[in-house]
């Protein structure tokens, strides 16, 4: 296997508060290979965005990386600050946010936002950057790109703006894109197009994607591998087919509903009884045990041990076996 684009080991993010230290990301490890799409899935509040922000160095204080390693293209980056980190952002790691309506500066033409990004990272002239801006817009499917570079964000629809955002994230040719709920804010009719576009562009360039979402449908469509997060920890990780069809972790199985992949309804995530615990009142042991149909006494005393199965792994005392039932 080629060297991973992104490799995180035991990543821990902490937020000091008056009532103690919260750990929105707690000992998470995974790799993303060049050109691979890793889906990161879990209920809202699981720590998916925190993990993504930690990688690109944009945690909002007081949240900070408290432990573990982040390695991008062979370089350890979790200790980098200021200018050194800035050079990586956009150039090696791109980011796409959830809401395209608020991601673009309303007062700057999109062509200017593209050129300023390229000029910050690439050794090219302004004229060349301007030419590339037009090409980048054309590539993300903006009709009349040559004129549209002069448009302001408000002159585009939500879907078109997300295309612009994708062009911006890719314009300095990063090897990894972190896409944090890239379609959640969009009209259902354009969601699939945007995912397909993102996937195609990244495949053409060999760019890896960390695709953060709470939508299993998006995962099934786009991801090569899946990381399932629960209350800051990695519950399960593996190739998409195996995780979706034969989950080992009861939480993954719960996310999929009782019959994996049989239903594609949007309400699947709500089929697990109860809600994810708040970070300041995490249950001991396996944080999932109050909601887990398989929980037993030892689940509340210690977190589930890591079990591996081929390329996959899960953290659970009583994992589901390969048939997906006990």
């Amino acid at each position, binding site marked *: 296997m080629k060297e991973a684009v992104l490799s995180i080991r035991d990543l821990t993010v902490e937020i000091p508060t008056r009532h103690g230290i919260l750990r929105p990301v707690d000992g998470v490890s995974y790799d993303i290979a060049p050109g691979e799409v890793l889906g990161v899935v879990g209920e809202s509040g699981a720590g998916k965005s925190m993990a993504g922000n930690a990688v*690109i160095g*944009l945690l909002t204080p007081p949240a900070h990386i408290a432990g573990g390693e982040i390695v991008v293209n062979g370089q350890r980056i979790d200790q980098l600050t200021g200018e050194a980190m*800035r*050079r*990586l*952002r*956009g*150039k090696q790691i*791109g*980011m796409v*946010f959830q*809401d395209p309506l*608020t*991601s*673009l*500066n*309303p*007062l*700057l033409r999109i062509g200017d936002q593209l050129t*300023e*990004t390229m000029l*910050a*990272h690439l050794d090219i002239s302004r004229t060349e950057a301007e030419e590339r801006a037009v090409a980048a817009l054309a590539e993300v499917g903006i009709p009349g790109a040559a004129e549209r570079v002069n448009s*302001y964000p*408000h*002159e585009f629809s939500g879907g078109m703006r997300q295309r612009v*955002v994708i062009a*911006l*994230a890719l314009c*300095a040719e990063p090897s990894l894109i972190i896409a944090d709920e890239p379609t959640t804010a969009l009209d259902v009719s354009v969601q699939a197009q945007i995912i397909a576009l993102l996937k195609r562009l990244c495949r053409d360039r060999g760019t890896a994607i960390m695709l953060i979402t709470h939508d299993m449908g998006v995962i099934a469509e786009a991801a090569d591998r899946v990381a399932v997060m629960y209350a800051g920890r990695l519950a399960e990780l593996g190739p998409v087919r195996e995780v979706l069809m034969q989950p080992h972790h009861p939480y993954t199985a719960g996310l999929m509903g009782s019959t994996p992949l049989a239903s594609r309804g949007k309400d699947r995530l709500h089929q697990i009884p109860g809600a994810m615990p708040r970070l300041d009142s995490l249950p001991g042991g396996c944080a999932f045990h109050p909601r887990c149909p398989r929980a037993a006494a030892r689940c509340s005393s210690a977190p589930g041990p890591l079990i591996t199965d081929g390329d996959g792994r899960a953290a659970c005392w009583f994992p589901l076996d390969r048939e997906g039932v006990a």
Partner: protein
Amino acid sequence: MLAYVIQRVFQSAIVLLVVGLVAFSMFRFVGDPVDNMLGQERTQADIERLRTTLGLDQPFPVQYYKFLTNAAQGNFGVSYRQGRPVSDILMERAPATLELAAVSGFLAITIGIGLGVFTAIRRNGFAANAIMSISLIGVSLPTFLIGILLIYLFSVELGWLPSFGRGETVDVGGWSTGFLTSSGLQALILPSITLGLYQMTLIMRLVRSEMLEVLRQDYIRFARARGLRERAVNFRHALKNTLVPVITVTGLQLGSIIAFAIITETVFQWPGVGLLFINAIQFVDIPVMAAYLMLISVMFVGINLIVDLLYFAIDPRLRADRTAAH
């Protein structure tokens, strides 16, 4: 856009008509000009003749119309006290006030915005906190007290700067300017600080809070995520968005600088229109008072109009909405 401008000019004209009505009413209801102008020894015939010359025998709307057409041509009649055309007196006095207001406004805007940005970017730094604390003084102390304190310190105790008057002025094409002599410039320092301090602190605090708000926006995060330099993020992306709401308040503040000049001019015996107005009140010199009112309102309305047009220049969303709306 053009339709909007026309609409705003129309509104401004209405405001001026109303102020004109107030100014005109002073002639009729605050004292009798005939009384004022004729001495103790007068005959009924004298009174009638003067009434006819002044047009006071005509119906109210006709008089108002005459007043307006005269005012529009800069003709406000003759000062009761000085017996000279009010327009001549104003022309003599206006440069002093306008130069003072211009310097104060310039200081208030440049230092206000500069410190506002600084205290927002370094929001937890020692210097920023110190500036914020000191700025409370600027907001809470009344103008005349600041003026007196400055005079005490820099004129009486240290003897560095003059405590009253404009210093030497040079006549440039009918405009007496204090900018060209060193005593003129020195004389400007204390009054312009006194006059501009309140507006400066107000602008600074406003810029700071707006900038902090803007820095929290998604497009700033996205600008950082693209690896733009901190300078570009702060000044290209954040400052421009900060200025949109700041412009209105700043515009109004410039208007009030001219209005507040009355106090400063009195404290420093500055020979401008403010001091003229105060003297006019003492002598119930109605034509001068009316002219001053009109002059100030024309400036207010003019500044408001300019502020509106600045919005168009800076915010593309308005340009689009307005053009679409018409």
